[in-house]
């Protein structure tokens, strides 16, 4: 399961407005990053765990959010344990895991469209200084859409390299990936135009 993939649900966390969730995430992050006392960090960890329980997304989904940290956290913990001692090491690493988990929970319980709409609303004041906020929101949507497309392209290129025994050749990997990406971009441009972008 990919981190940050929306999982439909009807819990309180799901129903909370996207803007409030994003603001809450920012607020909790600020508090957690400023805090150094074990009590505050324990409270943040407890609150995140409670929110996961309320959202009812399950342990597997929770693990998927923090899974990318599984290689970093042990190293970080070990280094800080040796340099700062056990308590600061545990405080620093557990708040990192808690914040990543909380960000993951926001994405798990909020439709991408709602996140983008909330960001769009947040950016609206920029329209006064000439920023095209609608265009910015479209670009954000396209970015989210393009991640799996480019990932699939990268897999195809890697397989093609392997099939020809060139898995270690950086150029044989990079050139088709870039060319393929640009072609995909041109095709997407045609599709956007066919579907009435700028009408």
């Amino acid at each position, binding site marked *: 399961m990919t981190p940050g993939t929306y999982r439909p649900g009807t819990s309180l966390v799901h129903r909370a407005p996207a803007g409030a969730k994003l603001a809450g995430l920012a607020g909790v992050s600020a508090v957690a990053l400023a805090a150094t006392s074990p009590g505050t960090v324990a409270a943040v960890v407890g609150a995140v765990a409670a929110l996961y329980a309320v959202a009812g997304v399950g342990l597997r989904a929770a693990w998927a959010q923090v899974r990318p940290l599984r290689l970093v956290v042990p190293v970080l913990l070990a280094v800080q344990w040796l340099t700062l001692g056990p308590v600061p090491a545990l405080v620093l690493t557990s708040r990192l895991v808690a914040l990543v988990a909380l960000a993951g929970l926001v994405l798990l319980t909020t439709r991408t*469209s709602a996140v983008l709409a909330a960001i769009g609303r947040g950016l609206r004041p920029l329209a006064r200084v000439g920023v095209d906020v609608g265009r910015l929101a479209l*670009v954000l949507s*396209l970015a989210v859409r393009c991640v799996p497309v480019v990932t699939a392209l990268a897999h195809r290129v890697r397989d093609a390299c392997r099939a020809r025994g060139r898995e270690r050749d950086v150029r044989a990997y990079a050139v088709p990936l870039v060319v393929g990406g640009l072609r995909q971009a041109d*095709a*997407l*441009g045609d599709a*956007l135009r*066919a*579907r009435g972008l*700028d009408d």
Partner: protein
Amino acid sequence: MIARAVAAARRRNADRGARTPGAAPPVPADAVPSGVVPAGVVPADAATGCVVRLEDVHVRLGGRDVLRGVDVELTERRVGIVGANGSGKSTLARLLNGLVVPTAGRVLVDGLDTRRDGAAVRRRVGFVFTDPDAQIVMPTVAEDVAYSVRGVPASERDRIVRDALAARGLAHHADHPAHLLSGGQKQLLALTSVLAARPRLVVADEPTTLLDLRNTRRFAAELAALPQQVVLVSHDLTLMDAMDRVLVVDDGRVVADDAPGPAVAHYRRLVDEAAPASRRGAS
């Protein structure tokens, strides 16, 4: 990549004189045949097809003459286009909604010139591409359909999206990321998103090339059931049987324009004649 896609779309729109939002495209009086819906009016009845006219159309792309003098008028409900790779048939399809504009000659859709009134033409003419991954522009299934529905309140838009997805058996996937759909479902989503904009003509450029037999049949059945006028470009000659008229494109020209039977027979003869005699004997 995204910046390139958006910039490409905008640049090409600017090149072709796309109108500013909300402004009705001017229509020259002589270009509108009597009885045709004026520009800017959303068609009330999707089943009323378009009159598409190509007048001595030449297209030169990348230093190559892709189309060399095409003169046709398309009014039939089902028009098929067949031809070899590189014959110009995809370019011919792209001319119909202004994705490609003629180097010489002109293309008129209900009297609207695709060069001047590209945006208005694209509101009438929906386009299904070969690769659904290149035309699904939003992260989730419902969002992609919603992108086609504009100018209505959010609640009305959600209802239209729900109905559209239900009609193609995609309702259960509404909130799923589009990339998790199967190839067949992706192409159905692409068609659903095109139809949500209520076009009067649907142009499909080899829409079944990436699909297996079952999904090809399913997609063909969906196309056949559409009330809209359809122009279908395909290498699958079995799909041509359901057409009212088939154009055969070869080397940038329409070399046959007939009922499906004679047109497909003409295309087969062309392929046979082009193949070396030794291979012909082997097949």
